[in-house]
């Protein structure tokens, strides 16, 4: 359930809700971190649930000593009121058998808060690509029927590729075709529920492998930005090798691959 930080429940009607699926490489979550950090979004509440493994830590978006001691939990909601953007960040994995229950609770909250649309940032195993997918862009999108009318033209003008359907049961020759997102976590469930509950939802995903997934996250936010225009290009950027857009990495991305090495190792 959504629990606000303050005393009153914020009005989210008409906002775009951005959220990650916990998926291969944690790309969706890294992408949401980039968005929250770059836009300096403020925390408006918690999505308190018994479906996610508990975890706590200090403010992952801290920029100074003063704001570094705010406690963060496993599912929090941030907002940028000026851009009518709301971001839900999920920081841990699902407890066994609880993912479907989470999807139901989440979508029930989305419906009751009257969000204009939901954008799910996700990823899928790159080793599952077929030959055609190997030769094309690694980004894909999916729209629920209630979203198709409003954004179809814009999506077509961006020349984006829709996620292809694949055989539901690959071992059987005449198997039906359906959307499969291996490594996508709850992406498929969210998409199916979004279709059946008529929720305006967009899935944006990238084919990735586990490893250093920061470049994948940067790629995914830039893909999202092509459509939503969350931030504008930085025209005074001096470093030619940097992204044209000033995405700010949060301070919690330090030491992603562990502590320093013992000098005696060498």
């Amino acid at each position: 359930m959504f629990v606000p930080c303050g005393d009153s429940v914020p009005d989210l009607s008409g906002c775009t809700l951005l959220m990650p699926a916990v998926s291969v490489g944690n790309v969706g979550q890294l992408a949401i971190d980039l968005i929250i950090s770059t836009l300096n979004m403020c925390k408006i509440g918690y999505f308190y649930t018994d479906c996610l493994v508990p975890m706590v830590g200090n403010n992952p978006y801290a920029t100074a000593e003063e704001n570094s001691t705010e406690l963060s939990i496993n599912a929090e909601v941030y907002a940028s009121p000026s851009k009518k953007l709301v971001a839900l960040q999920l920081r841990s994995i699902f407890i066994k058998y609880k993912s479907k229950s989470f999807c139901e609770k989440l979508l029930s909250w989305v419906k009751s808060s009257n969000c204009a649309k939901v954008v799910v940032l996700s990823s899928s195993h790159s080793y599952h690509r077929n030959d055609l997918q190997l030769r094309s862009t690694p980004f894909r999108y999916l729209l629920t029927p209630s979203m198709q009318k409003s954004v179809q033209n814009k999506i077509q003008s961006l020349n984006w590729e829709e996620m292809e359907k694949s055989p539901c049961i690959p071992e059987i020759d005449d198997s039906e075709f359906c959307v499969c997102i291996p490594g996508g976590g709850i992406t498929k469930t969210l998409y199916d529920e979004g279709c059946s509950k008529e929720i305006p939802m967009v899935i944006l995903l990238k084919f990735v492998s586990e490893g250093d997934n920061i470049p994948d996250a940067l790629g995914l936010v830039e893909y999202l930005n092509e459509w939503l225009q969350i931030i504008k290009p930085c025209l005074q950027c001096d470093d030619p090798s940097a992204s044209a857009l000033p995405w700010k990495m949060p301070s919690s991305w330090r030491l992603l691959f562990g502590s320093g090495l013992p000098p005696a190792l060498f």
Partner: protein
Amino acid sequence: MAATFFGEVVRAPCRAGTEDEEEEEEEGRRETPEDGEVRQQLARKREVRLLRRQTKTTLEVSLLEKYPCSKFIIAIGNNAVAFLSSFIMNSGVWEEVGCAKLWNEWCRTVDTTHLSPTEAFCVFYHLKSNPLVVLCQCSCYVAEDQQYQWLEKVFGSCPRKNVQVTILTCRHVTDYKTSESTSSLHTPFLKALKTQNFREPPCCSLLEQPNIVHDLPAAVLSYCQVWKISAILYLCYTDVMKLDLITVEAFKPVLSSRSLKSLVKNIPQSTEILKKLMTTNEIQSNIYT
């Protein structure tokens, strides 16, 4: 997929935990009524129950509803438990008010009426002279799927804001992320995490990002943060996870906190009690028993 040094192609573990999701989906499709029945039985076996050992009855309401308190001190893990036993419970009369009975793969406690000192347990006490002080000694592992149940059975569904919660626990120093090597750190050392409503200065420095906490301590602190309860977690990073004198003594700065200051009576006596606890544990922790 990944290729190993020996040329085998293996399924690389996905740190997003998505293999479980795929297994769950497949299980959901193939599950027969018998499978469902087995799953329900396992869920019932894993249920967390709060009971009074003296009367062998289950508590009908949550523990803090039955025993409202202004101070709730929770020790999780054997070193934190030994610290509270030696330095806090050595003075005053502590009456047992409840016991959490739970089963999981790590904590196979069946009989909670006769527990040996080294067996895992989760017991609640209040101070007879001031029943508003409640203490929990939890040395059993509470699994992921049981942590929220534990919270519900202890805190209940109506969060009380006028309670101050103090949690003590240990973690292995290899869990601590720092730009220097963990082998160069002077262990054990204490770190703290507090909720927004906790106003006092902590007894040690706060846990810096990117460090995080999991398990029951995280579940309790999350609950307190969300429901605006004043709470602090004192985390001792150590390189000895079994019962250890130096690790237990690393919690001593916490004795100066407002929650514990009034409960501390005789520190030299506490140190003696602690040494006795160590000896008892060493005798009991024989692989042949």
